[in-house]
């Protein structure tokens, strides 16, 4: 059997063009889930194939790509995707530095460092539709979105407050885009939801298995679905004494923290965003060096 050389970016050019058309439509109608013919990629559905198709459709030879998973460049899935991009897009450079990249593919996090107008962020999406928790039929959900009928989702929030005095949605927090469509912002923590609002960078969302693309264009309103008199709360990193926990590695006191349980049951905390942590550490070392 002959060996088969792959096209730049794995997908054939027609497929890439199709994805780009869907992206343009998604940008034109902020928050609307554009159906597209998601291609089978050589990694599992659910491993970021939707995000990857966006990345491969957008990637050019001068691109500088960063891939993170759970905030880290070095987690297994991020490594896997980065290797695949390197293999199928010869000439493209990759980086772990958030400030340097032009295209950032991510699963479950948005970097702590604010992104710029020169950057595009691609988020991997398992469930594109926030209404799926209250309505299982996609056909009915489409009508609800069209009519901006989110009352059943809001009733869920109401019932949460009645039952728990607190909204219990932890991640994938439903977020209203430009005053109409409510999106599932992918499983980012509530901590990252504010970063969607009025972002300088273009945010793209790709769901491979569910075959949908949607976007939050730059400088577009993105508001978490809440009651006007109940504040939206992000993850709380204060200890029992009310003190903000800091990263055990870099000392940062304003980043999303991962929790680690030691053998003795003791808990330590570190930045979830590995590049951010490295930057903070470097800066601290420089300050120390100057001081010395």
């Amino acid at each position, binding site marked *: 059997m002959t060996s088969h050389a792959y096209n730049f970016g794995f997908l054939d050019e027609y497929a890439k063009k199709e994805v780009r058309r869907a992206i343009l439509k998604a940008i034109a109608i902020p928050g609307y889930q554009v159906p597209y013919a998601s291609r089978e990629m050589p990694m599992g559905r659910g491993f970021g194939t939707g995000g990857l198709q966006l990345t491969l459709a957008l990637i050019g030879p001068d691109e500088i790509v960063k891939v993170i998973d759970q905030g880290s460049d070095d987690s297994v899935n991020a490594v896997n995707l980065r290797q695949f991009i390197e293999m199928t897009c010869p000439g493209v450079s990759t980086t772990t530095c958030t400030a340097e990249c032009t295209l950032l593919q991510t699963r479950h996090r948005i970097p702590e460092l604010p992104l710029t107008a020169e950057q595009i962020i691609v988020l991997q999406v398992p469930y594109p539709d926030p209404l799926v928790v209250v309505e299982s039929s996609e056909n009915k959900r489409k009508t609800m979105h069209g*009519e901006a*009928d989110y*009352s059943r989702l809001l*009733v869920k929030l*109401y*019932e949460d407050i*009645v039952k728990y005095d607190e909204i219990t949605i932890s991640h994938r927090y439903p977020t209203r885009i430009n005053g109409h469509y409510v999106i599932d912002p992918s499983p980012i923590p509530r901590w990252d939801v504010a970063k969607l609002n009025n972002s300088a960078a273009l945010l793209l969302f790709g769901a491979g298995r569910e075959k949908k693309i949607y976007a939050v264009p730059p400088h577009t309103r993105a508001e978490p679905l809440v009651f*006007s008199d109940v504040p939206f709360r992000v993850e709380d990193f204060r200890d029992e004494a009310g003190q903000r926990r800091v990263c055990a590695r870099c000392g940062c006191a304003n980043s999303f923290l991962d929790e680690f349980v030691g053998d003795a049951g003791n808990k330590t905390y570190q930045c979830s965003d590995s590049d951010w942590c490295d930057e903070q550490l470097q800066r601290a070392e420089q300050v120390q060096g100057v001081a010395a």
Partner: protein
Amino acid sequence: MNKILEVRNLGKIYGPGCPQCIDSTGPEADTNLCPHCDSLVAMHGVSFDLFEGEILGIMGESGSGKSTVVNTLYSEQAPSAGEAIFYDPVSAAEGGKSGKQHELFALNAAQQRWLRNHRFGMVYQNPQRGLNFNITAGGNIAERLLMSDLMDYGAIRERAKSLLARTEVLLSRVDDLPKNFSGGMQQRVQIAKALATRPPLLFLDEVTTGLDLSVQARILDLILEIQQELKTSMIVVTHDLGVIRLLTGRAIVMKYGRVIEAGLTDQILEDPQHAYTQRLVASAL
């Protein structure tokens, strides 16, 4: 008195329909099934007006088409023929000017939904249709308020509680699931939910059928009180002459999809013209 609803020649046929459908069905033919094409002529040529603050009764036995009338007006299904105009009375608080006219069957689904959420209310015989049994009584009312864009949790909560208090549901049960309520209590929650957005037009479809007599009487009293308080226009669908007598000022009688008699309720009950109505009234005495 201002007109709130004008219904003309409303018709609904289930099935393919044929040119002989209308002539072959109705009270004279003693059937609503067309013998030529097996279509069901659920209603045909139904016309009436409803005025502000009035309660109109639609009376008939099952299969007479009375529920089909309100189902089409509440846009749960599309009619096969006819038109209906809703003259939206704008309250004094909203400026007091004469409201908009809506041609109900010319509206798109979103517009119909808007009217259902904001301007109409519906109470069904079966509370499972009007309530979501998986969310609390308060949540059911909240849903309707949220549909009309009220976004303040405290205000929603207050309004839900005051509505439940008004419909005599114990406040301690506001956060309970309606599936654990008695039938009468479920109807009260349904009424509270329907009234949540202070709709000027309310549809009531056999709301007391199947309830104990004492519970029936209290629900009917509640409906009358609310009508007097809020001046809500209502269409009451029932097979029960007692309900018609107690609640309505005017009534229409339906049989096999046709209106066979219409007029003041007292007149119909005292001096029924149509043989069918005469039998109906006689049997109830």
